Structures are given as C-alpha cells and as structure tokens.
C-alpha cells in the first residue's frame, strides 16, 4: 500500500481544484465529482485501518522523498495509532459535509466544494506529516480555506468571526514556528522523531512548551483563549461548523500528544498543573456558560470547549498519576480517554451541528426560542437529535461515555478532586443538552412555522443515520479503536515520563 497517504492527501486537493475549474455553471457535475472524491477518499481510508498493524508503535505506511535539501526537510509521511484514527475520522466527516451542502448552497457552490475538498487533503496532511516543517506547512495552509468558508458563506457577523479566527490561530502558530526553527537549528533537521530525541535544558523546554501551548491551546481551544470559537461556529455555514468542531479542534489535542509531551517532557511535568487547571476551568465554567446560551450553535460550541477540556485533562493527568501513585499503571488510561474523546466528540459535535443545520435550512433561525415541539412535525429528526444529545451528555452505550469515563477514572487515580470536578460535567452536560432538547424538540408546537416543518429527506437521513451508527458502534464496542492506539499510547507515556535532562 505504498503511497496511500499521499493519495489520501492529494486526491481531495486535486478534486477540489477540478471542481473549482468546472465552475458554478457546471455545478451539477461538480457536486457529483465532490461526492465521488470524498467517498473515494473514505474508501481509501478503510485499507489504512485494515492494513494497520495494531501491535506496533512504529510509524506505518511510511513515505519519504526529498523536499528542501537545504533545510534537511523531507516530504515524510507516516501514521501511528494516534494519527491513523484521526485521518479516518477526517475522511469520514467530509462526506456528510459534501452531502449536507447539496441543495442548500446556491451561492458560489463550486468554490464551496473546492474549499472543503482542499481542506480535507490539508487536514489529512497535518495528521500524516512526520516532518515538522511539512506539518507546519499543512497546519497553516489549512487556515486559508476555513477563512474563506466562514467569510463567504457565513452569517451576518462572518467577517468579524473569520478574521478573529484567522488571527487567533495565526498568532498561536507563529510562535510554534519560532520554537520549531529553534529546535531545527539545534537538531539539524526537521524530522519530528529527531526533535523528540533532542536533548533540551529545562529552560529551553519551558520556552518551547509555552510556544506550543499557545498554538495548541488556541486550536483546542482552552480557556481563556477560546473566545474565537463561539463566534466562528455561530457564523460559519453548517459544513464549516462541522469540520471546525469535528476535525480542526482535534489538531490542538493531536499537537499536545505529538509535540508538547514528547519534546518537552520535563516542562510538561513542571507545568502540568497549569494545563490541568485550565482544562478543569473549561469543563466546569464553560459548562455553566453553555447552560445560558440562547443560540443553538453557540450552545454546542461551548459544549465543545467543555468536552475538549477532557482531552487536555486526559493528556496531562499522567504526571499527577505518577506523582501520586508512583507507578505508570493507569497512566495510559488518561491518554486513551483523551483519544477516544477526540474521535467521539468529532462524531457527536459534527452530528449536532448537522442537526442544527437541518433546522436552520428550514426556519433560518438558530434561536432556541423560535423552536419547540419539533417532534410533532419531524419525528425521525427528533429521534436522531435526541440520540446525539444523549451521546453528548455521555450516556453509556454511546461514544461520548467511553472517553469521559476513561478520563474520569484516570484522574481519580491522580486526585479525588480532579475526578469530582471532571464528573461535574456529566451533570452539567446532561443539563445543558437535555434542556436544549426539551426546549427545541419537545413541548407543544410553538408557532405555525414549526407546525409547517417537513421531516428529514433521504439525503439528511442517510447522513445522520451513518453518524448515529458510528456513535453507537464506538460506544458499544470501543475495543478495536483502543486496540490500534494501545502500543502508540504506551510508547507516548514512556516518552512523556522520561526526563530529557
């Protein structure tokens, strides 16, 4: 399967450029091309999973070609147990986005599909790159399509939202670039493996850790640099919100696991309480903020921040576990939880944004107050929405439960109080999601407009149905997912606790 990763990256990009060239006039063909390209990418992602050797922590499907000899930078690709599931998730989530825009996007549709396809390729590139310079290249390039998606197809305050989004992420990223270059000057090349092996003093590690923290915390996003997310989500078109929540936020978590922990383990150990504190604030405080939202998308956006708090908590609680128990037993569980949470949140938040999109396409309102009693007119939709809401609240049997449960158990080993605070989210999460469902789905029909709603059409049913299956499968049978990650996470834990000093 040589070259599979390259195909996964460049096939959607090439298809995107082709759709762009076909133009709005031939959008009929363009749409089908986009669908075929995204389905092919998904189909090609399947062998990535099936041919993946779950017993090894080594990089698989490696590709290496010279890129910039002067910088010793290579076009180097490869996946391990962390990046492979995320690539599959990316390929999986792009399909619903293409289908969801089918009849809804009538302004500049060619550019719309092109932007999403190109972004798919770039996002897969971020997860597949094993050269830090190539990683950064994809990481930044990805901002361009997202900037345009929010800015062109977004809501009334789209310009403010998209510029804020771009500048926030750009600010975080340039300091990461500065840190990467600093390490390149010391290590002599940009391969992530040699950056991970590079000996660094504690002071260097602190600086590098802070630069990475800035970049990844913005992306996750962590409190207090989360403020771009609600704006971006509210203004973005449905597809933009889905990709943003499902994939882009994961890049922050991925960055912590791939860069921060292995490259600056001592600084991570020293500053872990900072990250844990910020994560717990995100979980608890942002949970309360979500409770009072009037706008459905904003509510889900805040819920995303709270759920992503689990990811950072799970990743950094390792050090506290070692500190308290003196053993590595259970340390991997936090990271397992973080990874499952990323995948699960990708599915659930994507699905919820699609649900909101379904309602928005019909009533052109995201205000909770405009809805009520939707179940009476849209029973099929209501059952999907309730399922995803319950998954978001962490109901056992859905994917939302697995990740949160693992992280909470792991943090219990570290400290009773972390576990308690993290568990608060189960209550809060249930509160804000179920209250949302109560106000939107149940109750009497509030207005003639709601009474006139039409239930899901075939296209929407397929999309939501596929996501529902995924959510349930990961929830009931997470073993295969945990299995492919296991060796990589073991390796990561050993890297994270080994001192570089």
């Amino acid at each position, binding site marked *: 399967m040589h070259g599979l990763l390259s195909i996964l990256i460049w096939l959607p990009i090439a298809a995107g450029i082709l759709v762009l060239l076909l133009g709005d006039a031939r959008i009929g063909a363009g749409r089908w091309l986009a669908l075929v390209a995204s389905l092919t990418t998904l189909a090609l992602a399947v062998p990535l999973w099936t041919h993946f050797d779950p017993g090894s922590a080594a990089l698989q499907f490696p590709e290496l070609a010279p890129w910039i*000899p002067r910088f010793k930078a290579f076009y180097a690709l490869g996946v391990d147990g962390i990046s492979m599931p995320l690539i599959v998730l990316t390929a999986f989530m792009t399909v619903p986005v293409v289908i969801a825009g089918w009849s809804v996007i009538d302004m500049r549709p060619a550019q719309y599909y092109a932007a999403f396809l190109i972004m798919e390729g770039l996002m897969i590139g971020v997860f597949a790159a094993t050269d830090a310079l190539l990683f950064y290249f994809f990481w930044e390039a990805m901002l361009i399509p997202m900037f345009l998606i929010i800015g062109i197809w977004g809501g009334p305050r789209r310009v403010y939202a998209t510029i804020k989004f771009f500048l926030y992420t750009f600010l975080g990223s340039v300091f990461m670039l500065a840190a990467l270059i600093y390490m390149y000057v010391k290590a002599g090349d940009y391969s992530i493996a040699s950056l991970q092996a590079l000996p660094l003093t504690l002071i260097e590690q602190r600086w590098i850790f802070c630069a990475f923290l800035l970049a990844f915390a913005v992306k996750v996003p962590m409190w207090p640099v989360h403020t771009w997310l609600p704006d971006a989500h509210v203004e973005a078109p449905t597809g933009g919100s889905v990709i943003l929540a499902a994939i882009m936020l994961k890049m922050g978590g991925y960055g912590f696991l791939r860069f921060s922990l292995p490259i600056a383990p001592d600084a991570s150990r020293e500053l872990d309480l900072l990250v844990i504190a910020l994560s717990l604030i995100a979980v608890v405080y942002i949970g309360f903020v979500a409770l009072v939202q009037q706008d459905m998308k904003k509510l889900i956006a805040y819920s995303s921040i709270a759920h992503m708090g689990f990811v950072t908590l799970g990743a950094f609680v390792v050090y506290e576990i070692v500190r308290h128990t003196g053993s590595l037993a259970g340390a991997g569980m936090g990271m397992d939880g973080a990874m499952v949470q990323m995948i699960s949140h990708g599915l659930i938040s994507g699905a919820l944004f699609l649900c909101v999109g379904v309602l928005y396409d019909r009533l052109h309102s995201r205000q909770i107050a405009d809805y009520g009693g939707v179940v009476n007119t849209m029973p099929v939709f209501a059952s999907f929405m309730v399922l995803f809401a319950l998954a978001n609240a962490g109901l056992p049997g859905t994917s939302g439960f697995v990740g949160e449960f693992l992280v909470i158990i792991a943090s219990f080993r570290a400290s009773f109080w972390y576990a308690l605070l993290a568990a608060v989210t189960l209550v809060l999460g249930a509160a804000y999601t179920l209250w949302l469902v109560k106000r939107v789905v149940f109750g009497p029909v509030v207005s003639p407009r709601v009474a006139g709603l039409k239930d899901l059409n075939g296209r929407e049913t397929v999309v939501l149905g596929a996501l529902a299956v995924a959510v349930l499968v990961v929830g009931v049978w997470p073993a295969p997912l945990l299995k492919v990650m296991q060796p990589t996470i073991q390796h990561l834990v050993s890297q994270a606790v080994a001192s570089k000093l």
Partner: protein
Amino acid sequence: MSLATFAPAVAEITLTVAVCVILLVDAFAGERRRRLTPTLTLLALVIGAALTVYYGQVSERQVLFEGMYVADPLAVVLKLAGFLFVAVALLYSRAYLENRNILRGEYYVLALTALLGIFVLISANSLLTVYLGVELLALSVYALVAFDRDSGVSAEAAMKYFVLGAIASGALLYGMSLIYGLTGTLDLGTLASQLHAPLNAGVVLGLTFIVVAVAFKLGAVPFHMWLPDVYEGAPTSVTLFIGTAPKIAYFALALRLLAQGLAGTEAQWSQMLTVLAVLTLVVGNVVALVQSNLKRMLAYSTIANVGFIVLGFVAGTPDGYAAAMYYTLVYVLVALGSFGVILLASSRGFEADRLDDYKGLHRRDPLLALVMMVLMFSTAGVPPFVGFWAKLRIFQVLWESGHLWLVILAAAMSVVGAYYYLRVIKLMYFDEPAGELPAARRELPVRLALGLNAVAVLILGLLPGPLLDLCARVIH
C-alpha cells in the same frame, strides 16, 4: 585588454546600446508608430538577458576595469532577475500608460536607464561606481515619478522624492568622502582588507552617513517618509516600477557596501541596522493598518518587508545575506503582481487605488481577485505560498545568530501584518460591490502574465528548494 574582458559586462553594454537605438527610433518613428517603442524595449530586454546567459556568465569572482567593476555569479543572477522584473513591469504598464495618454518613448528609455543604474550598482566594486549607479537609478526614477506632468499629485511626489533623495545622496557622498579620506582608497576590496578594529572614530562617522543613505534608499524607518507619498502620488505604473526592480539594486547596495566593503565595521553597522529593523517592522506594520488607499497601504507593507530584509543583514552571516536576497527576490515577485492587479483593475479616469474600489472585486473579475488573494496570503507569510519561506528563512538565520528578541518581535509583527492583508481579501471576497464600477479590462497577454505570476508564487511555495539553493550558492 581583449574583447573577452568585456564579456562579463555584456548586460550593461547591451542596455546602453539599446537606450541609444530606442531614443533614435522613437524620435524618427513619430506619433503614428508609438507602439514600436514598447515592443522594441521588451525585445532589448530579452536580447540582453539572452546575451547575459550566453556570454556574461562567470564561474567565479572577477574584478575588471581597473577595479571599478566586479563580475560574480551573484551579479549575474541579480541582473537576470532585473531583466525579468523590468520586462514584466513594462508589460503590465502599457495599457495604463495608453489610457492616460502618457505612453511616450521617454518612459521606456528612462526605465532602461534606471535598469542600467541598477546593473552598475549590482556590479560596483568601488565607491565611485556605487555612487554612479545610485545616481543613475535615482535620476531616472525622479523623472519617471513626474512623468504625468499634468498631475499635481505626481509633481508633488516627484519634488518630495527629489529633495529628500538629494539629501540622501549627499549623506552617501559625505560618508564615502570621510572613509576615503581616512583610508585613502575607493576600492571596496582594499577597504575590506584595511578596515578592522580598532576603528578610527572618523570611519564610524562616515559609516553612519552611509547607513543613513542605505536606509533611505531601502525605505527603512525613520528614513521612510518619502516612500508612502511617492508610492501614492506616482502613476501606478511608476509605483510598480519603483516598488520592484530597484529593490534588487538597493539590496546589492547594502551587500556590496556594508557586508563586503565595510565588513570590518560589522559590529557597528549591525547595531545601527538592528535599531532600524525594529522601528521599520513596528512602524510599517502598524501604520499600514489604518490606510484607506491601497497604494499607500502597499507602501507601508513595503516598509514592513524592508524590515525583514534588514533583519537578514542584522544576522551578519553569509546565510543571513542569502536570506535577505531570497526575501528581496520573493518580495519583488509578489509586489510585481500586486501592483499589476491595481493596473489591470484601473481604467480611463479610474485609478482603482482606494481600498473601497476593491469591494466585491470577486464578482467583477474573478481572476484578478484570485491573483490578489494569492499574493496577499503570500505577503502575509501563509503557506503554501512562497512568502512563507522568505519569512521562515529570516527567522532561521536570526535563530542561528542568536537574536531571540528579534525573532519574537518579527513573529508578532507578522501577525499584525496579516490583518491588513486579510482586509484586502475581505473586501474582494466577502463584501458586495459598492455601486457600479467600471468593468476591468480584458487584455489577454497581460492577464496571462499576471496568472503566471500567481502560479509562480504558488509553485515556488510548494517547492522552495531550488531558489533557496541558488541564493545561498551565489552568496557564498
């Protein structure tokens, strides 16, 4: 002295011949065959470039003409870049000149003499040759700025440029005379071997004047005052010209004078340049935020970019100079395209130089908007475009020479810079057109060139290796 001695100077010789021929042809061709001169000029540039490739190549550094002139691979590369950039600039400008009734032969002759000045500067090996090149370039450009003689704004810009430029030339000459007086030589090679610590205070004084002149020519803060006014006031085609090829010459000026001739005073000039770079980065980026005229905004963006070029010199290593050269070439490529878009968006009686003129450009002219977006993202330093590598290279050499704070400042300032580039994209893509604006002109060859310009920015961004290598090879 055989004929072969002249071969390395074939670029200058061709240009001089071309200037004479074109002047004569233009005088006799008369009004009816006005289109002859632009074509001839482009032809001359192509021939010049071809002759340089075939006869002007040198494998190593050669000093010619009694030590006045130096030929090295660096000079060949910079001259070829000069040919290319001037040819493209003239190609973009023609319709603009026609629409304003200023398509005259003199315009092309002046462009060629300016290019000759650039070449003299690139190959200068003596303080005298340096001054000759600087003045030949400057005088041609002063005249070009005032070319639209009925325009009051242009005349004002030219006046400002001339007066301030004269002061800068004076400073340069004064600095040179001090150094000549204290060392007794004009030759840059001899200067390099004579000047070393401990330095005479007079040499440092002379150096200061030279740094001021270089900073003025580059447009580094606080010697940047002329730049926004000239960029805004000059006809756009002239702004395009000033904003592109001469930057290469001023890079060569800084390299030949400071990095090579006055290498012994590096400790002094690198301190001065550090202060200039910091001021330039901050003022250029911050002031650009509040501009409402696109030409003026691009002027401040030029200043901000000059800050990065100066940072390459601050690093003070061959890698640093190579980074500055790479940055200069990349910047010129992008500036060429950005001003080209303004030229193409304009039409008779409509300058298209206010930012608001670009509202909804995407609707009126998708190609122009796409090209401009690529160029803006490139200058902002976002991959996959080439501007990213230029910035990356500067960051690298700064780290290698241990300038932590400059890296942080430059990184922060590139975020500030991103805002005003994004604003242009926002106007073109997110806003609706404000009222009826004249449709942009359809000129296929120019559009093709502009498209290729943007494609070059993308390709060089995807595969930056060859150009990076070239810059490093010719500097070392």
